């Protein structure tokens, strides 16, 4: 059973990438329905199986680490696989209705979409440092391809910036991997963690960790390395922006978090932990502030991603040399923040796409009057905003509540201030959109109604993100399952 599930999980996205390269956009979409259903089923079944039986290592090629590559199938990984299946299915469905099938280049959307999905699954499961590098490149290149699709000059400029940033980030990560291999002689994360625990105070390993974190921070668009994100996420078609903001950013963060949780304690330092947290805090404040100033709707949402990513980096100070309980709380808060942001931000980008479709303009000012015509997409946008503002009962609230508790319990009260200020600032940019939409415009009532199907998808995602606060315990119980080494 488990063998079939793992094979299905690894095989489907790659196989669908290959198949849909041979099809045109419409046929690719029909194929995608089947593939998404299959992948979602596998994700749910795997999640249930792990919830019952606990995690395990899956040796690819039958060679166990350190000689071969092992996949670490644990509670956190399957939780993220399930999240990916949910969000990617929603974005895929939306893309099928949203993108124009008659443009000749749209047929290349599906192969890139499936490669992206395969890369994400690979990263969630990865337990080999070099394999994670290849997974990251798979994600980056397909994401860049999706942004550049269509090939207008502005999109090319944004995707070139994105590509260069992503490549430099990957090289920093790879340099860290080179140093780690030179120091410890293995690439398996488990093996490295064990050796690093036995031999503390190796200056080279500490620097390797710092290099990898720096590269991954660039790829995650942590302040002040976020310059590439808003153009790329703002200019891509909405389903692509949703994929990029909701999932792609999380992949590099996830690797950074895994590295920190395994190697941070022996090889990290107070300075690194506080620096990462501090940059995250600045990202929350600066990103939210800039989101309030953007003239274009999707830029608002993109800068909001910069801010929401910042919260995730509070994980670093909140898990370094604190009690086991506080560390658990911080990890749970991080997990919930990743999932709720993924759902809410995908909902927000898709709803923003609908709003742009109906007004024919990407400017916030041109939304005037749309409140009377399109309450449904606007409502989804607002519901997603509730989660970003972290009002109860949303998933965003539950996440920030856990982070708040962790920061107070570890005596680092300054992070609590950031959490409160960030919530207020995000309220400011969400209400700004609302204010613009309900303004009565003079003479502007030329709105198109997007199809209902397009409106239902962001609504479903926004509701999920709200409901996550209520179902949080269930999600977290699987994420925190103890992982038995060697089972």
């Amino acid at each position, binding site marked *: 059973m488990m063998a079939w599930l793992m094979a299905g999980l690894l095989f489907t996205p790659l196989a669908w990438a*290959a198949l849909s390269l*041979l099809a045109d956009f419409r046929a690719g979409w029909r194929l995608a329905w089947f593939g998404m259903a299959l992948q979602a089923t596998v994700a749910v079944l795997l999640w249930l199986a792990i919830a019952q039986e606990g995690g395990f290592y*899956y040796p690819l090629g039958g060679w166990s680490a350190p000689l071969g590559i092992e996949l670490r199938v644990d509670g956190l990984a399957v939780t993220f696989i399930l999240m990916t299946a949910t969000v990617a299915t929603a974005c895929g469905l939306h893309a099928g209705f949203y993108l124009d099938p008659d443009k000749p280049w749209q047929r290349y959307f599906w192969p890139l979409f499936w490669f992206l999905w395969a890369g994400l699954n690979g990263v969630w499961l990865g337990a080999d440092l070099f394999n994670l590098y290849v997974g990251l490149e798979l994600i980056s290149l397909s994401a860049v391809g999706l942004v550049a699709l*269509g090939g207008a000059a502005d999109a090319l400029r944004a995707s070139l910036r994105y590509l260069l940033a992503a490549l430099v980030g990957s090289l920093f990560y790879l340099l860290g991997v080179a140093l780690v291999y030179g120091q410890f002689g293995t690439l398996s994360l488990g093996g490295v963690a064990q050796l690093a625990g036995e031999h503390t105070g190796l200056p080279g390993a500490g620097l390797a960790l710092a290099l990898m974190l720096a590269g991954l921070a660039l790829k995650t668009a942590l302040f002040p390395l976020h310059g590439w994100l808003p153009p790329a996420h703002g200019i891509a078609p909405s389903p692509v922006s949703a994929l990029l903001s909701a999932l792609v950013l999380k992949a590099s963060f996830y690797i950074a978090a895994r590295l920190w949780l395994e190697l941070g304690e022996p090889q990290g330092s107070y300075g690194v932990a506080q620096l990462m947290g501090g940059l995250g805090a600045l990202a929350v404040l600066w990103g939210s502030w800039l989101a309030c100033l953007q003239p274009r709707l999707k830029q608002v949402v993109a800068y909001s991603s910069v801010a929401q990513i910042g919260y995730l980096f509070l994980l670093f100070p909140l898990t370094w040399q604190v009690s086991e309980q506080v560390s658990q709380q911080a990890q749970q808060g991080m997990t919930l923040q990743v999932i709720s942001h993924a759902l809410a931000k995908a909902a927000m980008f898709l709803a923003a796409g609908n709003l742009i479709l109906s007004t024919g303009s*990407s400017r916030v000012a041109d939304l005037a009057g749309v409140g009377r015509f399109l309450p449904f997409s606007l409502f989804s946008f607002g519901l997603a905003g509730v989660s970003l503002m972290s009002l109860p009962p949303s998933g965003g609230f539950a996440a920030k509540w856990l982070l708040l508790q962790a920061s107070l319990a570890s005596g680092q009260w300054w992070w609590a201030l950031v959490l409160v200020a960030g919530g207020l600032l995000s309220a400011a940019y969400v209400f700004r959109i609302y204010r613009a939409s309900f303004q009565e415009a003079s003479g502007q009532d030329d709105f198109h109604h997007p199809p209902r199907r397009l409106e239902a998808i962001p609504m479903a995602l926004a509701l999920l993100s709200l409901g996550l606060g209520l179902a949080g315990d269930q999600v977290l119980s699987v994420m925190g399952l103890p992982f038995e080494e060697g089972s």
Partner: protein
Amino acid sequence: MKCRGLVSLLLLCAALGWVLVYSLWSIAFNPVGGSLPEQVSKAMADSGVDHPITAVLLNFRSYDTLLEIGVLVIAAIAGISMARLPSLEDPAFRTHDALLDALQRWFVPLMWLVAGYLVWAGAHQPGGAFQAGAVLAATGVLMRLGGMPMGFLQPGYLLRAGLILGFAVFLLVALVTAVVGDAFLAYPAGTAKYLILLIELFLTLSIAMVLLSLFVAAPVNDAPESQEGHQ
């Protein structure tokens, strides 16, 4: 101002360089942990090939190679999605130079031979799919620069099938081994040699196709499409 920025960048790079020198030095003279090459040489007997690098690439760490081919295919997809001409091969480039034609008639078969040799050699000495694919792609580049018509270079079915062929064969092998065997990509005992050869052959073709299509993917037309909301 600009000059000051450059100087501070230079200083930052120098600082990072010194830190790296220090850490390289400390790593080089204080390594911990075991030795991976010893494990490789112990497992060589079961790998199905004689050359350790090929064994690592296509057996021990074959998942890396599978994803790496995926990365190549992605680059090719993104590349040909940019091309708007019905043919990636611009007829304007076709020339009929008697000297070039004669030279190519000599060179092209020779390069095919070299590519074939490289695949075959990969099992026991340096060589293998990527090197052979690169030689094949170079043949294609030579043919294009020399003005030989290559009808398959249209963003049509044939080109896309060629791009994905090697990846698809690799993936099929992975699926079959997962279903009948132990794990994804775990070759059953005794079949490793033939499966690796099969994969290498198809990979060679696809890698050549990817590199060639990326080489020819740059022609563009002059009608940029409007992005959403930019009307």
